[in-house]
C-alpha cells in the first residue's frame, strides 16, 4: 500500500477531488496547511510596517491506496493540479505497512 501526501494550490482542490473521484477513489483527508518551497512569499503592509509572509497557505491531501491505484491517483493529481508555474506543489509517496479499520478490526488492503 502507498500513502500519497500531495501539497497543492488551494484553488486547485476541487479539480483534484473531481479527478480522483473519476478514477474511483472515495476516501481522502484534506488539511489546510502553510509552508513554503521555492515559491517566494509576499509582503504585507500594516500602517507602513512591512511584514514578509513566507509561509503560504496551501492545501494538503492524504490518501492511502493500493499500489495499483496509487499510480493512477498520482497522475490524476498531477494533471489536475498543474498550472506550470512555481508553486504548483509536490507529491510525496511512502510505503504503508498496515491499515486497521477501527469498527471491525479488519486489516490490510481490505480495510482501505
Amino acid at each position, binding site marked *: 500500500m502507498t500513502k500519497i501526501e500531495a501539497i497543492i494550490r488551494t484553488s486547485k482542490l476541487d479539480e483534484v477531488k473531481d479527478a480522483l473521484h473519476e478514477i474511483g477513489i472515495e476516501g481522502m483527508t484534506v488539511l489546510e496547511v502553510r509552508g513554503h518551497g521555492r515559491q517566494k512569499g509576499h509582503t504585507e503592509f500594516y*500602517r507602513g*510596517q512591512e511584514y*514578509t509572509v513566507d509561509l503560504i497557505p496551501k492545501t494538503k491531501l492524504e490518501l492511502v491506496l493500493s499500489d495499483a491505484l496509487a499510480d493512477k491517483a498520482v497522475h490524476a493529481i498531477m494533471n489536475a493540479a498543474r498550472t506550470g508555474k512555481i508553486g504548483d506543489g509536490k507529491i510525496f509517496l511512502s510505503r504503508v505497512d498496515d491499515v486497521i479499520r477501527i469498527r471491525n478490526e479488519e486489516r490490510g488492503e481490505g480495510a482501505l
Partner: protein
Amino acid sequence: MAKTWVMGVTICLALCLTVASHHLAAQAVSGTGSAASQPADSQNDRIARLEQQVADAKGSADNAWMLSSAALVLMMTGPGLALFYGGLVRKKNVLATMMQSFAMMALVTVVWAVVGYSLSFGSGNSFIGGLHNVFLRGVGASPDADYAATIPAQTFMIYQLMFAIITPALITGAFAERMKFSAMAVFMVLWSLLVYSPMAHMVWGKGGLLNASLGGRYPTLDFAGGTVVHVTSGVSALVCALYLGKRIGYPKAPMPPHSVVLSFIGACLLWVGWFGFNAGSALSAGSLATSAFVATHFGAAAAVIGWCAAEWLRNGKPSALGAISGAVAGLVAITPAAGFVGPMAALAIGLAAGVVCYLMVAKVKSRFGYDDTLDAFGVHGAGGTIGALLTGVFASSAVNPIFKDAKGAVLPSGVIEGNGHQLLNQLVGVAIAWVLAIVVTLIILKVVDVVIGLRVSEDHEIQGLDLSQHGEEGYYWEVSA
C-alpha cells in the same frame, strides 16, 4: 388633461380652507369661553405662558439631542474603540485589549460621580475645579447656565462623562499586549483625576485658564476636545510606550493585526459616534450642531483620502487598515475645530491630518523605534496637535461668533480672518496639554510601577494577556463538534 388636474387641486384647496376656517372659528369661541371664566388671565400672562412653553419646547429638543449624543459617545468606547483596538492586537490579547476599554466605562463612571465631575466642571481656580459638586451635589434637573442653559445640568454631566471615559481608553493602545490589568486600572483612575480633570477644567470649566467663552486668560478654541481629549491621551500614550518599553520581539518578530475586520467595524462605529462627540458639543440642537456635524464628516472623508494617497504612493497599494486609520486621524484633527470652521476648512484639516498621521506611524515611529503599539500617539497625539493648531488658523466668526468686544460686536476668530494672535493662544493650550500629560503621566507611572509593577512577566506576555490576566480566551478552540 392639465386643466382637469388644476381644477382638482383648486377644489381640494377650497375644501381645505373651508375646513380650516371652521376649525379656527370653533377654537376662537372656546378661547373666549375660557377667558371669560378666568378674567384674571391677562394678555401678558398668556404671553408669559407661551414664552415658557416655547422655552420648554426648545429645552426638550436640546435635551433629546444631548441624550442621544451622550449615548453615541459611549458607543465610541464600547464597542467602537474596543473593536478597533481589539482587532489590531494578536489573537492572544484580544479580550484583554477590549477589556481595557470596557473597564473605563465602569471605573471612570464611578470616579466621575464621586469627584471627577466636580474637579472638571465645578467652580474652582484657573487650573482645577473645586469640591462643590462632589457626589454630584447640586447637579440636577435645572440647567447650569454657564455651560448649557437649555438642558438639565445632569444631562451635561452625563454627556461630559462619556468624554472622560473614552480619553483614558485611547491611551490603552500604546501599552497594549504587555501591561498588568491591575496596574492599568490604578493608573487610569489616577490619570483621570490628575490629567483629564485639570485639562477639562482649564479648557471648558468656569474660569479655566484656557476657556474661550468663560473668561480664560489664554482663550483656546477647542470645540470638542482636541487638547482635552486627544493631545492629553496621545502624549500620555507616548510616555507610557517609552516607560514600559517594547513588547518582547518588537520590532523584529512580525506582529500584524489578528483581525482587520474587527478594526474595520470598530472604526465605522467610531465615525458614527463622533457625530455625538462633535455635533453634540454644541450642547444644543441648533444650527451650530449641524455645522459641527458637517465639518466632522468632511474632515474624516478628506483624511481617508489623504492617508490612502500617501500609502498608495509609498507602498503601491491603498490598504483597508490605512483607510480606517485615516478616518480616525481626520476625526481627531477636526474635533477641536468642528464648531468653529466651515466645510472647506474641514476638508483641508482632514487632508493634512491624514497625510501627517500616516507619516507619523509609518516613518517617525520606525525611525525612533518606540513601541506605540496601536499608534495612540501617532494618531491622537499628532492629529490632536495639528487639529488644535489649525483651528486657530481656520476658525471663522461667521460659523461661530465666539469672540465679542465689550459692546457685543463680533471679533475675528482665526488667523485667516485677521486674528493672528489666536495661533499663539492655541499654541499655549497645546503646550500646556503636552507638559501636563508628560509630567503627570510620568509621575503616576513611577508610583504605580513601584507599588504594583506595570508590566506582566515575560512568561505571561508570551502566553498572552487573555489567559494570564483574565483566565479566558477570545477564540476558544473546541475539539469536539
